[in-house]
């Protein structure tokens, strides 16, 4: 038992060595945080999701890691908070996590890599918020009411992440989590999650 604990401790001391340039330490922190993923979508990193906003401070004062919540009630935020702190602790840094509300998180902050990874994972990535709003207005209603003729999503270009067909339809506005809607592909008949523009 005691043998196991000593093994993991030794390399940490050098990581904190004083001679290190501040920017090197910062990029080391970013690299370490890059391994953290959204607990709900384990293929996309917090940075790619736009949740991880900033790292500031220095070794003597300690670091502040700035994260921003996705949905108000997103239950993953506490996990993310804990994951960030644990990572900073592993690096041997004094750190706190700051949750910043403004500017409000938007799916537009997701990187192109994130979109690709989502698609590969089986989740259709979000349309840009402006595009989505334009579609809502084009459908002619101020309150976004849908008509219940079987409406395909083809005019919204929500492509099936499995077969890439545009011939898809919305089953439910709310899918496995608040941030996703449930869609069905009418070509390959698979259901899939669509990450809603937010």
């Amino acid at each position, binding site marked *: 038992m005691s043998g196991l604990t000593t093994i993991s401790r030794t390399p940490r001391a050098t990581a904190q060595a004083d001679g290190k340039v501040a920017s090197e330490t910062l990029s080391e922190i970013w690299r370490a945080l890059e391994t953290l993923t959204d607990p709900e979508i384990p293929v996309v990193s917090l940075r790619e999701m736009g949740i991880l906003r900033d790292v500031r401070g220095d070794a003597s004062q300690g670091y502040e890691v700035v994260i921003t*919540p996705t949905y*108000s009630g997103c239950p993953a935020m506490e996990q993310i908070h804990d994951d960030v702190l644990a990572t900073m602790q592993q690096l041997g840094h004094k750190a706190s996590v700051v949750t910043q*509300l403004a500017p*409000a*998180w938007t799916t537009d902050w997701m990187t192109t890599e994130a979109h690709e990874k989502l698609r590969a994972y089986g989740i259709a990535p979000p349309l840009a918020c402006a595009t989505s709003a334009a579609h809502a207005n084009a459908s002619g209603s101020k309150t976004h*009411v849908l008509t219940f003729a079987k409406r395909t999503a083809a005019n919204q270009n929500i492509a099936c992440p499995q077969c890439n067909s545009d011939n898809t339809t919305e089953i439910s506005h*709310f899918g496995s989590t608040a941030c996703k809607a449930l869609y069905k592909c009418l070509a390959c008949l698979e259901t899939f999650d669509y990450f809603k523009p937010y």
Partner: protein
Amino acid sequence: MAASSHADAAHIDYLLHLADNAVVLGQRNGEWCGHGPVLEEDIAMTNMSLDLIGQARMLYQHAASLVGDGATEDSLAYFRDAHVFRNYTLLELPHHGALVGYAIDNRDYAVTIVRNFLYSSLMLLVWDRLQNSSDTQLAAIAAKSLKEVRYHVRHAGDWLVRFGDGTTESHDKAQAALDHLMPYTQEFWSASDFESGVATNGIGVDITSLRNAWEMQLQDTLSEATLQIPTAGGFITTGKQQVHSEHLTFLLEEMQSLARRHPEGVW
């Protein structure tokens, strides 16, 4: 000094009003968890409750920072009694039509949907205006909540059209729910001291100024749903001024009992 503490009190009451609205409706709609009419709706309703409870948490956290004195989001949500809550009476009503006090009935999804529609249509306008609040934290919360309430309005509006323009039975149930709930919306437009207080100093919105826009939104959806807007009249409820219906105590009892029985509990 007196003037500024009076202004602070209105500010705190306003934040608590917004927070209590969100937490009470979130808790009420959470009753559908595991009992939704179809699986997708079960999930939709609980996801929207999650949004509301998340909004309530941010608002309570912010209010707690102004209240001071060791207040936390938990003390405000779990350790205040019904007679100090400031939510609209509309939001505490059970999911069925008017009954005598001791009667129980099955939940009626039409009541749930109509209430969500009436309230989210209002909040769509309120959050939009509050993005410009002079309280920057409230403005930040509003910007997030606005994104969420857009989906809530869309959800409720879709179902309202489906019910109203559906079968005779679904139409009648939706109309009955609307007739039952509409009088409670009069409370939106009756002025209260704390609302007037925050409207004048730029923290809050002058809620009465939103009435026309709200009614136009209603008109749009309800005419598509082939439903008649009843004339709201009669008694004006006073939940936001801390005088509630008999239903709030039961709702809070269920929500608060765990925290009160195990005040230091963590998991």
